[in-house]
């Protein structure tokens, strides 16, 4: 008798030693554990960013357009992609594989829109002269304090590292979902649910990156003359 069949015959009641103490499959539990470990990766990066920000003169260079407008639309794209993903998982649970594929493809489209907008935003900042360890010259002039303390040149390093790692997760998520969409009829419902867990996690991380990186660094008074 297979492990899964045995587990079904002797269902676990809390922690009495069954094979399904959480009543989820081992793959789904594995994805949850991966999400926990990846959460710690992003948490460490964000805490490191907060440490640098608290111990330095930190520039606040983001104008309403394009930075805040673009990042807000990107947020909308990711939130909408989570909605389409959950619709896909819901369709899959009803056995509607064609519907699940349709919603997963919509999720991928939102993800790709996020990546394109993010690359445009990166291009705009790099065009201004932002690099991982350099600030644009006019930023240094504007954000240097009255006592001569210059703005931290690590702004670019934290910005590109955190948003870049997140963009990498979105890109790998889009590829993962494309594979799931292509094989949706062969996959079990739990497999589609697991891909959904990963995608929602990518959305969840952005819910912290967006306010901490973008909203906290708005050029509120137009210091850079945008």
């Amino acid at each position, binding site marked *: 008798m297979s492990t899964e069949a045995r587990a079904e015959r002797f269902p676990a009641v809390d922690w009495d030693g069954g094979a399904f103490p959480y009543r989820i499959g081992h793959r789904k*539990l594995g994805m949850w554990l991966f999400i926990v470990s990846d959460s710690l990766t992003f948490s460490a990066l964000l*805490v490191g960013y907060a440490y640098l920000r608290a111990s330095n003169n930190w520039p606040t260079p983001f104008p309403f357009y394009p930075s805040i407008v673009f990042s807000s639309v990107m947020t909308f794209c990711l939130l909408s992609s989570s909605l389409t993903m959950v619709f896909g998982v819901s369709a899959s649970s009803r056995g509607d594989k064609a519907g699940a594929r349709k919603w997963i493809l919509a999720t991928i489209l939102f993800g790709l829109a996020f990546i394109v907008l993010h690359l445009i935003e990166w291009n705009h900042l790099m065009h201004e002269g932002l690099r991982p360890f350099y600030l644009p010259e006019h930023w*240094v002039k504007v954000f240097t304090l009255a006592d001569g303390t210059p703005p931290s*040149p690590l702004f670019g390093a934290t910005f590109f590292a955190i948003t870049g790692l997140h963009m990498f997760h979105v890109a790998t998520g889009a590829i993962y979902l494309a594979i799931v969409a292509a094989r949706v009829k062969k996959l079990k419902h739990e497999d589609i649910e697991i891909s*959904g867990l990963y995608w929602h996690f990518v959305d969840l991380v952005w819910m912290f990156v967006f306010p901490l990186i973008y909203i906290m660094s708005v050029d509120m008074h137009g210091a850079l003359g945008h």
Partner: protein
Amino acid sequence: MSEHVEEHFAGSNKLFVSIWLWLVGLTLIEIFLAYKTMPIHFMLTILLGLSLIKAALIVAYFMHLKFERFSLIITIIPMLVICICLLFVWFPDSFRSSELRYKFKESPPVAPAPAEEP
């Protein structure tokens, strides 16, 4: 594999749309706050609070954790919260190091100017 494990997925599309509307609404509040003048600590507290609410909504409803067994929830969430809190152990040092920082007499390095076209 049992049908029970395979097809367990609670929550209606109406519920998911309402959660999405809440998430969009909270995001709009964050953008609105970006242009309000207030002390940075106050702003940070509000933004982090809103982010935690949004994260909880995503985890509970979109990631379906609310509908999973309680044993899974208490396995995943407390250890994550404790580990994230531990990341802040050295954070107060950031305030000390800002006081110790060497003050530049000259401007810090800037990006080299692009080469002029002939």
